[in-house]
C-alpha cells in the first residue's frame, strides 16, 4: 500500500471551493418548470373538486396555503437553477444544487462502482440526458445529475468510467 502519510499543510490541500462549476443548459430549467406546471395542474383539479364541498373561508385559507407553497417552490426553482452545476476534477466529481437547502456532493472516482446515462421521453424532447454515478452500499450514496446535453453526459460517463477503472 502506497499511502503517503506526510503531514500536509493546509495551503497544500487541493481546494474544492476554487473550482468552476459548469451550469446546466437553460432547457433543463424549462423542463423542470414544465414538470412543475403539469403537477400543479393535476393537483389543481383536486382542489377545484373541493370547491363544491367547502365554503368560501375554507377555500380562501386553502388558496393562501396553496399560493405560499407555490411561491416557495417557484423561488427554489428559479433561484436554485443558478445554484446548480457540476465540477469535474482529476480524481472526483462534485454536484451542487439548491437555494433554500444548498448541498454539494462529491464522489471520488476510486469509489465509483459504475456509471449510467438515461433518457426519458420528456428529456428526449428537450434534448437532455441524465447521468447516474453508483457507489457501493446503497442508494443513499449515489449521485444523479439530470439535465445534461447527451454528448456531454456520455463524455462524462466515459471519463468517469475510464478514471474509475484505473483503480482496483
Amino acid at each position: 500500500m502506497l499511502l503517503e502519510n506526510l503531514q500536509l499543510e493546509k495551503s497544500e490541500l487541493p481546494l474544492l471551493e476554487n473550482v468552476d462549476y459548469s451550469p446546466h443548459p437553460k432547457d433543463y430549467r424549462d423542463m423542470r418548470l414544465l414538470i412543475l406546471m403539469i403537477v400543479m395542474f393535476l393537483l389543481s383539479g383536486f382542489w377545484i373538486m373541493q370547491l363544491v364541498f367547502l365554503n368560501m373561508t375554507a377555500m380562501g385559507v386553502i388558496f393562501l396555503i396553496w399560493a405560499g407553497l407555490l411561491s416557495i417552490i417557484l423561488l427554489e426553482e428559479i433561484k436554485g437553477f443558478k445554484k446548480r452545476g457540476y465540477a469535474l476534477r482529476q480524481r472526483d466529481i462534485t454536484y451542487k444544487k439548491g437555494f433554500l437547502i444548498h448541498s454539494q456532493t462529491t464522489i471520488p472516482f476510486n469509489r465509483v462502482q459504475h456509471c449510467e446515462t438515461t433518457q426519458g421521453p420528456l428529456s428526449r424532447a428537450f434534448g437532455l440526458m441524465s447521468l447516474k454515478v453508483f457507489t457501493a452500499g446503497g442508494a443513499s450514496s449515489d449521485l444523479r445529475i439530470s439535465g445534461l446535453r447527451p454528448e456531454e453526459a456520455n463524455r462524462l460517463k466515459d471519463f468517469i468510467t475510464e478514471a474509475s477503472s484505473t483503480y482496483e
Partner: protein
Amino acid sequence: MSEYKFEEFNHQNILGVVIIFAQSVRKMLNAYLAFFAYSIFTDGVGKYVWWFFGISLVFTAVTSVLKYRNFRFKLDETQLVLNSGILTKDVMNIPLDRIQSVQMHQNFIQRILGITGLKIDTAGSSSEELEIPALKRKKAESLLEFLKSKIRNEALPKSDERMEESSVMLEKKSIKETLVNLDFKAILVLAITENHIRNGLIAVAFIMGYAGQYLDYSEQFVVDVFDDYAPELVESGIALIVVFVFTFLLLSVLLSFIQVILKFFDFKAEVDDQSFYISSGLIKRNEFTIPLKKIQFLEWKTNLLRKRLGFESIRIHQGRSVESAGKNLLEIPSCYSEQTEKVMETLYTELLEDDYFFLLQPHTYQRVFRALVLSLFGVPFFLIATIATQEIVVFSGLYLVYVFVMIAAAEKYYQSINLWVNEEVIIYERGWLFPKRTVVKLHKFQTVELNQTIFQAKRNICHLTFSTAAGGRSFRFFDKSEMEELRDFVLYKTESFTGKWM
C-alpha cells in the same frame, strides 16, 4: 491441507436431505397456516386440507431429495461455484474477492444432527442469500479455512520480496488473541444494563408490525427515531404515565434478559492481524469472520449505567447492499477500556500514541436548534391534554417545565459533541444519556456531502454527511470553513489511497 478436496464438485452431507426437508416444511407450514385455521372452524372442507397437506408433504420429501442431489459446490483458484436447481439449473459463480464474510451457523435441527450451515455474504446487490445448509462440522471448518486462505492469497501482494513478508504475516495470523469472553455473570450484567425502554419499544413495534418479516424495518425505525430525539422525550413521559410504564418496563426487562441471553450466550470474540472472529448464541449459534480490511467503520455505544461500570459495546459496520441493510451489523456487546484499546491498536495501525488530533466542536446554534425541536415535540401532547382537561394553567406550567428540561438536555448534548480528526481517522463523539463514538478511517469515504440551509448560510454553519459502503453519519451544525477544509482533507486521503477499502 485436509482430507477434503474442494477443487472437485462436492455434495453436502447426506443429512442435508433432512435439513432441506425441514426448511421446506417450515415454509409450507407458513403457507398452510391460514387453511388449518379455517378448517378448524368449518366442517366439510376441512379434511381436504389435510389431504392436500399430506400430498404436499410427500412432494416436498421428493423435491428435498432432488434438491440435495443437484446441489453441488466447488472451489477453484478464483471463485466458488454453486450448482443447484431441479428443473432449472442454476450455476452461481462467486468471485472470491467479492466475499465479504463467511459465517457458520447452526439452528436447532442442525445442532441435533451435528451438522453446520455455511453462509456466504457478498457485497453485491443481489438479494439472494448464498448458503450451503448442511456440512459436517469438520468439513465446514475446513472449507471455511480453505476459503479464508484463498481470500488471503488473493489479497496478498505477488512480488517475491513481498512474499516473504506475507509468509511472516501468515505465521503471525495464527496467533489469535481472545478479545472478549463473556461468562454468565458478565451476560447478566449486560442484561441488567440493557436499554430496556428501547427493547420494549422494539417489541411493541414488532407486535404491531405482526409478521416477522417486518421486524427489520420496524426495528430500524424505532432505533432511528429513538437515537435521534427520543431519549429526552421518553424520560419526560415517564412521570406522566407511571402505571403503564411500570408494566411496560417489567416486560421490557424480561425481554432484555431473554434477548441478551439468547444472543450473547457463550460469547467469544477473538482477533488477529487479519480478522475478527466472533461466536455466540444459545439456541442459534453464529460464528462470524470479519476481515479487518472490510470493516467500514466502528461505533462504540454505551449508556449512563454501563459508563459507570466502565464498559461499552462496539458495532462493526461492514460493506452491505441495500437489501441486507442492518443484517450485517455485528456487535461486541461488552468492551472495557483495555479491550477498546486493543481493537484500536489492531485496526488503526498508523495511529500513534502521541498522534496529533485536531478537535472540532459544533456551533452554539446547534443547542438552540435542538432545544427548539425538542420543545416543539411536546406541543401536540400538551395541547391535547389542555383541550381534553380544560386545565390551561396546569398544563402551560408543565409545558414550561418541560421546555426548561429540554433546554438543559440540549445544553448537555451540545457539550458532549466532539469531532476529532487526525491523519488516519475521524472520531465523532456525541450523546450524554447514550454516548456514542463513531470511528471511521479517512479512506473509507465514498461520498461526501455538504448541506446548508439558507438560514444557516448567515451564520456560516453547515452539515457534513459522509457515506461509506456501510452507510454514513452526519456532522451537524459545524463551522462551514472548517467543514470545507475537512472535506478537502478527506477527499485527498480517499483519492490518494490505492489499497482495497472493502
